[in-house]
């Protein structure tokens, strides 16, 4: 049953600027692979792009059910884009559950590709549907392309000897082929990827490649579509070598880079937790870079192992997410007290408590900046996108070793699993900051301070420099001290050391005019959507500018001046307004408007646009 299809002599090739596709299907359907292949190929053809994977919470929810639906949205464009798009132009729905879960977000008049092979009685039942949504009017108003992908794949692979189960597993590549044709993408990158991926089972290489081509050809022989499209390569992308990268991967690479620039061995202590686990897994694969990974018994042991490694003269690192951060609280205090470098990566997810582990939120900000017993200041940085992770990870390492302090590096689920083209740095643009261990016994002030306020780092094993450190308050020699004045002085020194980091930070750059009605202020993974909002506002002639904070504590210099240029400062956050509250306490004389969102989903452009319009009304 193929509908909406007419045979015309030649299908027109239309150029479009940007397209949003959402792939949706059962988590067993290989949706994430389909999405990431489409991403890779689009990156290679030179589009700008942004992605939003959406996993089910369960490992394998029962096939065909609504909780089992896995989604992957990509926006790709011939001009700059910054978000995966609010509403998809095309929805590919591999089963009824995927259709009903996603349909309401498809653009009016958008294209709906459905795999009718999965719309049988029992499929509808699994999705808890009484009626077939393809037949009850639900899909009216959309351009519906019905393909029995199951059948088509079976036919295409009829001659292969692999099991019918294995054949069925190829259907995502058929789907991908269809989309490649529709948007004029080359097959080669995926063909190559398949050859590599299944190199131990050549029959699977063949089958998947055949399915991909069959899907492509199905489009080509005009079976289905009225026209096909071309999204040209972005001209605005700066020249350079690019690579497609996921956030957690780029973070891992950046941390290795940071340790190398510091001339230290990287030692990760970690306990698996969604969505941070892949950082551990990635770093476990970097042993040839001298990286050591310790999968500890819990988050407390993980940070403690990292502290032990830093004490031993390596760069200690620990990676986790919200509940794990909570557990590390006490040990963070120890690292502050003994003034050892340490990087603490928090890939945030939706809370409180276990919350929604596979959803995004920026709600660990307060915990990071203020959530420890005692006066326990610690620098906090935030990654804003996969392609920014490398640089921010290096920055975290730099601050940690130069200031002898633990540093919190915030990421989130959206960055962690999102992918985008990353313009690779020139290697010699990376400025090393090698650590010099202190080894002069004639000058043994363990808590003496250099011009930055940092204490010397003394390597255990250095003859003649034996000393003791610990969590009790201590004097400048490291010995326990209950002296009142000493505690006052040490507390101040610890605070000033951290505040002084601000001096080394650049003043944030303003996108747009330095004066105006509204300053959009964001941090972390909202960068894309805020850029888009800014552009829309500018297009409308609104006096809106934008800055994005990469350093959350200490705050970068120059904010007072920047804020003075605007009537209102709009702070959209994926939490209940944490940064806004912090800014109000630091800057008393400006008008901060908080725009909180806590649905576990990223902002949509129009949600913020609406708020800007409201403020300007």
């Amino acid at each position: 049953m193929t509908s909406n299809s007419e045979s015309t002599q030649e299908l027109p090739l239309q150029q479009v600027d940007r397209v949003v596709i959402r792939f949706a299907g059962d988590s067993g359907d290989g949706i994430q692979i389909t999405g990431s292949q489409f991403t890779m190929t689009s990156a290679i053809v030179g589009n700008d792009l942004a992605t939003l994977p959406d996993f089910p919470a369960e490992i394998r929810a029962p096939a065909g059910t609504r909780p089992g639906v896995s989604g992957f949205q990509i926006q790709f464009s011939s001009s700059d884009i910054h978000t995966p798009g609010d509403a998809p132009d095309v929805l590919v729905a591999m089963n009824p559950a995927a259709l009903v879960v996603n349909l309401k977000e498809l653009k009016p008049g958008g294209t709906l590709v459905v795999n009718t092979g999965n719309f049988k009685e029992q499929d509808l039942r699994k999705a808890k549907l009484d009626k077939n949504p393809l037949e009850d009017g639900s899909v009216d108003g959309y351009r519906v392309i019905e393909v029995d992908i199951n059948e088509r794949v079976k036919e295409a692979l009829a001659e292969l000897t692999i099991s019918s189960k294995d054949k069925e597993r190829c259907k995502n590549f058929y789907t991908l082929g269809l989309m490649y044709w529709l948007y004029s993408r080359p097959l080669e990158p995926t063909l190559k990827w398949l050859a590599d991926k299944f190199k131990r089972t050549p029959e699977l290489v063949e089958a998947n490649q055949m399915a991909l081509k069959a899907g492509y050809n199905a489009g080509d022989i005009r079976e289905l579509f009225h026209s096909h499209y071309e999204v040209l390569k972005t001209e605005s992308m700066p020249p350079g070598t690019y690579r497609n990268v996921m956030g957690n991967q780029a973070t891992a690479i950046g941390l290795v880079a940071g340790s190398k620039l510091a001339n230290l061995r990287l030692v990760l202590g970690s306990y698996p937790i969604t969505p941070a686990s892949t950082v551990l897994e990635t770093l476990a694969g970097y042993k040839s870079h001298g990286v050591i990974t310790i999968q500890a018994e819990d988050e407390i042991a993980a940070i403690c192992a990292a502290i032990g490694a830093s004490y031993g003269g390596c760069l200690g690192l620990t990676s986790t997410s919200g509940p794990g951060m909570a557990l590390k609280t006490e040990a963070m205090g120890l690292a502050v007290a003994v003034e050892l470098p340490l990087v603490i990566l928090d890939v945030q997810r939706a809370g409180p408590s276990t919350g929604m582990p596979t959803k995004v939120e920026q709600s660990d900000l307060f915990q990071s900046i203020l959530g420890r017993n005692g006066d326990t200041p610690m620098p906090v940085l935030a990654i804003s996108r996969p392609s920014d992770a490398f640089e921010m990870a290096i920055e975290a390492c730099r601050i940690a070793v130069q200031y002898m302090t633990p540093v919190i590096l915030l990421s989130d689920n959206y960055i962690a699993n999102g992918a985008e083209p990353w313009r690779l740095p020139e290697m010699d643009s990376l400025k090393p900051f090698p650590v010099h261990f202190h080894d002069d016994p004639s000058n043994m002030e363990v808590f003496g301070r250099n011009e930055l306020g940092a204490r010397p780092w003394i390597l255990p094993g250095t003859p003649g420099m034996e000393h003791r450190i610990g969590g009790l308050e201590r004097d400048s020699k490291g010995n326990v001290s209950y002296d009142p004045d000493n505690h006052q002085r040490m507390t101040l020194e610890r605070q000033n050391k951290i505040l002084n980091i601000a001096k080394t930070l650049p003043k944030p750059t303003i996108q747009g005019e330095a004066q105006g009605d509204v300053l959009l202020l964001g941090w972390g993974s909202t960068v894309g959507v805020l850029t888009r909002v800014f552009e829309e506002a500018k297009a409308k002639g609104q006096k809106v500018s934008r800055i994005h904070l990469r350093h959350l504590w200490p705050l970068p210099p120059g904010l007072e001046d920047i804020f003075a240029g605007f009537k209102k400062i709009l702070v959209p956050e994926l939490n209940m307004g944490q940064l806004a509250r912090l800014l109000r306490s630091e800057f008393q004389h400006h008008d901060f408007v908080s725009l909180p969102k806590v649905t576990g989903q990223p902002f949509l452009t129009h949600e913020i646009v609406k708020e800007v319009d409201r403020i300007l009304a």
Partner: protein
Amino acid sequence: MTLQDPPKRTRKDFQSDQEVRWCPGCGDYAILASVQKYMAEAGVDPAKTVVVSGIGCSSRFPYYMNTYGFHTIHGRAPAIATGLKVARPDLDVWLITGDGDSMSIGGNHLIHVLRRNVNITILMFNNEIYGLTKGQYSPTSPVGTVKKSTPMGSVDRPFNPLQLVLGSQATFVARSVDADPGHLGKILKAAHEHQGTSFVEILQNCVIFNKDFYKDAMERSVRPDKTVDLVAGEPVVYGKERDKGLRFHDMQVEACAPGDALVWNPSGPNSAPGFLMAGLSEQAGMPTPIGIFRDYQALRYDTEVNSQVQKAVAKSGQGNLKDLVYAGETWQV
């Protein structure tokens, strides 16, 4: 080739400039002296030695040692020591802890460091009390202990520390007592020489909050009759006259003539003999075992982790940052 003699050191070389601040009469003094004495005798290098501890009276130990020292947080020393030893296998890492620090709040890290068999030496000062917080019962206090937080007596069954650590796959397990420096010195040596995690329980007198709790077995006058020293390769015989023997029968320990006594072997792959012995004092009429319950060679985490790194480097070459960054599918714009 002759090795150069290590510089001769004395106990003094291991004493820091900090005043020792335990209560007068505390068993910790004797242990400190024994450790310093052992280190001097063994020619240990203070600069290569790190003493890590948690929190408790016992955990103040590092401040008094003229080595590197890290007084960490309550219960977490095993995790910190693991990170340190994995990062720096060249350092000699000692861990000082108390019954509260290691068996209460630190229980999880203790069992895991033992399982991993990280090459460090753990000395657990067991005074069956929380000393530093002024005398609450601990997980090693016997049922019925009346202390500040248990005015009607404690009702939780204590751990048998040695059974707990044997259950955690410990490879070296021993017990000694603060008041017997000769025995303690021997045990420290064996523990330190063992490759892998060594766990030594040292019964320690807290004169303030749990004075002489161990005296029934450990008082000098009764010690020979009330304790049995487990020594590898020697028959399990005790008594002032060495007139009492022990042997196994059907997974039980029974008394026997000294000539029929079991010859002690702590080095088999099976830790059940040590486990059985560790429970001995709960059996009526049986002595309290001290000495070495287990001494077995096994895979060491610190060594293995580092050798995987070496293997990876050997296989793929020393990783270079550019390759890492420019890996995978790249393209030019």
